[in-house]
């Protein structure tokens, strides 16, 4: 399968996302000015500070030319994964419900957290089990998830580990159709024993398994 990793000016986790995706499949960079998604099976919007995050996090990036194609791709059922700033961009683009607010501490947090898999039956978590704990790092200042309407929760911070004050300890949510997933923690930073954890691979392996099944059908 083939992943496409979007690169905005200000993206900084695009290379890690690319290398993580390449552990399970092919992966290419998608430049923010290009509308051509190069036939990818899944799109990753990586972490960073797209367009400087001026105004509000993700607010300007969601109007990038590549995002027009990503939105169309998502509406056609394509798999889209947004990590950290990518999650913020997907919320601003209306592909995911809710918004990300400044951490209640108003401080940047950077640490390894335990995440509990709330739903192992999604395209993004099918390689995990219900309640399984994944050890994955967070690093953000604006990660307090908020949604006034009910949402499909996929990952929660383990009890006592919520780093940002997000409602109901939410760390990751999927859209109603189950093909767009956003999370604040960084699975691409936990894919090798050298990084202290390989639990992040679960997300990439799940996507590969899902795309593999779909191709067989």
């Amino acid at each position, binding site marked *: 399968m083939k992943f496409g990793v979007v690169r905005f000016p200000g993206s900084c986790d695009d290379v890690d996302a690319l290398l993580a995706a390449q552990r399970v499949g092919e992966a290419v960079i998608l430049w923010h000015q290009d509308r051509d998604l190069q036939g990818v099976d899944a799109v990753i919007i990586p972490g960073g500070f797209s367009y400087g995050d001026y105004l*509000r996090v993700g*607010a300007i990036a969601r109007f990038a030319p590549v995002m027009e194609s990503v939105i169309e791709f998502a509406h056609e059922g394509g798999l889209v994964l947004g990590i950290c700033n990518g999650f913020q961009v997907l919320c601003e683009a209306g592909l995911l419900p809710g*918004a990300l607010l*400044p951490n209640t501490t108003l401080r940047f947090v950077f640490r390894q957290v335990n995440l509990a898999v709330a739903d192992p039956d999604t395209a993004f978590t099918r390689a995990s089990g219900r309640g399984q704990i994944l050890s994955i790092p967070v690093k953000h200042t604006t990660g307090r998830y*908020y949604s006034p309407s009910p949402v499909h929760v996929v990952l929660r911070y383990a009890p006592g580990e919520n780093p940002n004050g997000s409602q109901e300890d939410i760390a990751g949510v999927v859209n109603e159709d189950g093909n767009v997933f956003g999370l604040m923690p960084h699975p691409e930073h936990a894919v090798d024993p050298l990084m202290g954890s390989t639990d992040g691979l679960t997300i990439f392996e799940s996507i590969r398994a899902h795309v593999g099944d779909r191709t067989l059908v």
Partner: protein
Amino acid sequence: MRARVLVRPKAGILDPQGQAVERALPALGFEGVENVHIGRLIELDVEDPEQLPAMCERLLVNPLIEDYEIVEALR
């Protein structure tokens, strides 16, 4: 027209910046202060002020988490 768009967190959404200031004021001897909220001021010159609400809804404001108010400013 020079316009000011006042953006503030929606009522009911935790505003830690406002809370921090609300706690700091009594510490300096200013009593009787409550409901402190911190938002953003966007000032802009526009040829067609009718477009301002659309600008707010599409870009300047995230209506899910923020309220806004448009006021005319003196140049």
